């Protein structure tokens, strides 16, 4: 990934206590992370809290990031998704039902920075790739990743055998990887 080195440098600087490095990393990746969190929790107020908490964890744990275990972006995505899933699991069933509705577009003002154009192009490409998956493959990936459901819960939700859910998960992920080569993720 072409932006790997600046990200790594930022995390090293964060580990040394450089708050400017956190600002740089935030400006580069916050729109992508916020989009992910908003997709999971559904509510703007919850999503903002989760986003802030995820970045705070990134700041506090910068020295524990291990390049051997994945990219900086993958690490940030894991932190953000994990907190977002914790949030939806902690809400009441009533709130959960509300958050299951499609996320509303948050209001934007002219002063807000627009999401990075490259990220948006990439997202459109990925969204199109996701749409080409078999419906069951797409469904199990979305319920597992954005819905935070376990495979057993997914099987119960869609009324399919657990073994099929497992197969669809693997096939869907591999297909996504094939459809969008690594060069297009740069």
């Amino acid at each position: 990934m072409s932006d790997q080195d600046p990200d790594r440098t930022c995390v090293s600087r964060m580990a040394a206590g450089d708050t400017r490095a956190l600002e740089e990393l935030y400006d580069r990746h916050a729109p992508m992370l916020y989009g992910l969190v908003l997709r999971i929790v559904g509510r703007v107020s919850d999503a903002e809290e989760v986003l802030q908490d995820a970045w705070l964890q990134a700041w506090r744990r910068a020295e524990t990031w291990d390049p051997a275990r994945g990219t900086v972006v993958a690490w940030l995505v894991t932190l953000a998704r994990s907190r977002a899933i914790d949030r939806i699991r902690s809400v009441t069933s009533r709130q959960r039902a509300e958050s299951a509705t499609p996320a509303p577009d948050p209001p934007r003002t002219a002063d807000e920075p627009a999401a990075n154009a490259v990220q948006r192009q990439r997202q459109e490409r990925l969204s199109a790739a996701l749409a080409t998956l078999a419906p069951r493959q797409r469904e199990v990936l979305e319920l597992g990743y954005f819905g935070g459901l376990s495979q057993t819960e997914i099987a119960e939700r869609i009324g399919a055998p657990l073994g099929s859910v497992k197969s669809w998960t693997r096939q869907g992920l591999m297909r996504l990887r094939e459809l969008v080569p690594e060069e297009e993720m740069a």
Partner: protein
Amino acid sequence: MSAHRDEYFDLCAARVLGSLGEADRLELERHLESGCPDCERALLELSQGVERLAASAPPVAPNPRVRLALLEQVRAEAAASPPAREADAPRDPGTRAPVTPARVIEMPRRAPPAWPTWVFAAAAALLAVSTVALWRTGESLRGELRTTRERVAKAELDLAVERAWAAVATSPGARVVDLAPLQGGLAMPHVRATYDPSSHRAIVAFDHLSTPAGSDFELWAILPDGPKSLGVVRGDATGHAEVRVPDAGDPAALSAFAISLEHEGGSGNPRKPAGPVILAGAVRS
């Protein structure tokens, strides 16, 4: 090392997606602990699929107040825990700058002690030796503590895995299948399979397992699309063997367990026995 099975690829996919159940997570961790290059490669490739899934959510610029609040909190934390050397220095309460003493008062020199120099040298040497000994003892204790913690963590993991397997037999819906001989002429092993429909796990126990020379017994799950090999079975010196099957299949699909007699090493085809099927038992609800 626990032998690799294709089912582990499915567990790898669920793990990177974050939807793996607890029992499966423990099972996979134990398998990965022993090092499996196939699964490690699969984890990497499947992670790339998850990266694409995450990035498929439309990017949205967060409200600037999130950035402001974050930086305010981070700066407050950074200010509360400055580097140790600076923290130790006395500070001016107003400017927070390190304080420099305004003047130094010279004290009258004391008369030198009457002890000979060698006493101090010997004491210093003794102190140095003691310090090194203490440091080594500390290092050794730290190492032992680390090893003990690792052993405890491994024992806890093993215990959790064993509990998950024990649950197969105690599950209210567990189905017990005694496999019956389909032909005579051979000293047949006694085979009992216990299958838990909720976890899809199965434990197959063998007794009086005496394999003819140059042959092997192979265990099969019978599914709607045909047999599926669950591996070659070899007994211990007492003729006992136990096979743990992490995923024997969905209860709607699994109809029976069967044993075939194969040439040494097994049938060579995971979807079809090459030798005769000698034992079978239907899985009934």
